[in-house]
């Protein structure tokens, strides 16, 4: 067995000076960043009234609450909860569908390969961004002012806030589409609408369907909370039971939400695989 020559560290140092001696600024950058992050963190803890005493008292209280949650028990209101859960699922399904239907034409306007002019595209994009900047709960508050309390306000809130998200995602999907098929349709004499219908939509529809299904899934979660401001669904029941400290009912409602979300997850991932194939998802 041949003995490899031991690399001489002095020799290596001379040959690769940049590995052994980094400039001071590069060496200090990482610790400085960490120190800064930790500093803001500490400042935040002080500013937001954290204290060990409050923390301990709170954890003690939380322990009691958790104990009182066991066993989960709906009392006599199980039918009401099931109706509320159905309402939540309805809100998610309707809101997402509505958003997708309205977002599709708008996303065409926001896609670079359809509307090449920046002047038109820019305001559409900023408009979508502003809608996304506002949380679903805030939209729910606004819609309650318009159509009154109830699940309908929730549907509209989810529809509006998803409209912003879909507009962006769809237009990205459209921009990523292959140009050749559109050119093929144009070469055979199709007009602009034909190009979109036969060249573009067949490419982007599976992607869009996947995204819509994913959003139905995530909106089931959002729909569970918009009830907190009065826009229907299981969140309304949950917020009420938390306020009157009925912890057994609270834990039952949380369990219901977990089961419903898991079920929807399972169904929609099945459907997504069926639509776009297993490989594309993974």
């Amino acid at each position, binding site marked *: 067995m041949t003995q490899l020559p031991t690399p001489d560290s002095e020799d290596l140092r001379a040959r690769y000076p940049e590995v052994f001696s980094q400039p001071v600024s590069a060496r200090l950058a990482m610790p400085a960043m960490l120190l800064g992050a930790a500093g803001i963190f500490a400042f935040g803890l002080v500013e*937001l009234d*954290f204290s060990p005493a409050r923390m301990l008292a709170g954890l003690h209280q939380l322990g009691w*609450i958790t104990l009182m949650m066991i066993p989960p028990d709906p009392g006599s209101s199980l039918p009401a909860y099931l109706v509320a859960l159905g309402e939540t699922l309805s809100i998610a399904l309707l809101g997402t569908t509505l958003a997708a239907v309205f977002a599709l034409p708008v996303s065409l306007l926001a896609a670079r390969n359809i509307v090449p002019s920046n002047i038109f595209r820019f305001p559409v994009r900023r408009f979508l961004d502003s809608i996304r900047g506002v949380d679903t709960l805030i939209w729910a508050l*606004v819609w309650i002012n318009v159509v009154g309390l*109830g699940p309908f306000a929730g549907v*509209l809130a989810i529809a509006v806030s998803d409209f912003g998200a879909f507009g962006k995602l769809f237009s990205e999907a459209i921009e990523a589409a292959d140009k050749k098929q559109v050119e093929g349709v144009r070469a055979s004499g199709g007009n602009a609408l034909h190009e979109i219908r036969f060249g573009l939509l067949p490419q982007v529809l599976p992607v869009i369907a996947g995204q819509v299904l994913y959003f139905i899934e995530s909106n089931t979660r959002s729909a569970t909370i918009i009830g907190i401001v009065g826009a229907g669904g299981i969140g309304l029941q949950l917020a009420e039971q938390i306020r009157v*400290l009925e912890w057994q009912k609270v834990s039952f409602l949380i369990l219901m*939400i977990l089961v419903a*979300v*898991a079920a929807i997850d399972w169904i929609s991932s099945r459907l997504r695989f069926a639509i776009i194939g297993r490989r594309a998802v993974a």
Partner: protein
Amino acid sequence: MAAAVSILPEQQLAVLNGAYRKAVARKRLRLTMATAVFLAALAVAAIGAEVDIRTLVAKIGNFASYFDRIFTLESGARVWTDLGEWLWGWQKWLSLLGETVLISYVGTLAGAILAFALNFLTAENTSPAPWLRFAIKRLMEFCRTVPDIVFALIFVIAFGLGPMAGVLAIMIHSVGALGKLYSEIVENIDMKPVEGVRSTGASWLSCMRFAVVPQVAAGFASYTLLRFEINVRGASVMGFVGAGGIGQELVVAVRKFYYSDVSAILLMIIISVFVIDIGTGWARGRLFGKEARA
């Protein structure tokens, strides 16, 4: 030269055409069935959600007029004609916005630290024991499925009103969400450095520190920044349930019909979300740039 297109004999063609038509018909049937099922589900959902088109038609004017009202000052003038009057509470709102950002910062960072500590236990290739992996995975699932505002509602009762409940709620939710993303990154690493470190007799902890962390740090940082961005939005509504930040002020303005305040606060929220989006986008671009160079 024109290419000759060979045409098959009549009988062969008929068979192929028949098969093609059948395949198309089957596909159409499937599509029609799926559409019918979907429409039926929508109809059921519409009844469940008490959708009433008449209410919408009758009240859609309110939606437009609501936006008209929130952009009108009490004097009747448009808000942008008198910025001083419109943004009269900007100092208060700005400090509340600062609190909101701070809530999401502290919550995200605390959540990221916890998720960092836990994710190596849940990744398939680094987990020391299957039962531990299973238990922590379920825990994380629970943390991210229960919405953060529900945690906030409960924490407000346990820890008292104030931003502390909001921070803890965001932290718990971030542990669940980040833990999953982190462990997915870890599952995609190159295992050779880990084997190298293990072959020198290093402990599990050293393997993680010297073989895994250097591979995943940039990806972790990128996801954390993205989470911070999402959490700023989440923190802006924490005040709805009394867990600190600008939400409290907004919900009061909406409920008490202080119209111009609503638009002023919304404007400030949207602008700060924009600024943070752009800032984190820039930072993530730099991180990934660095990774590509290395």
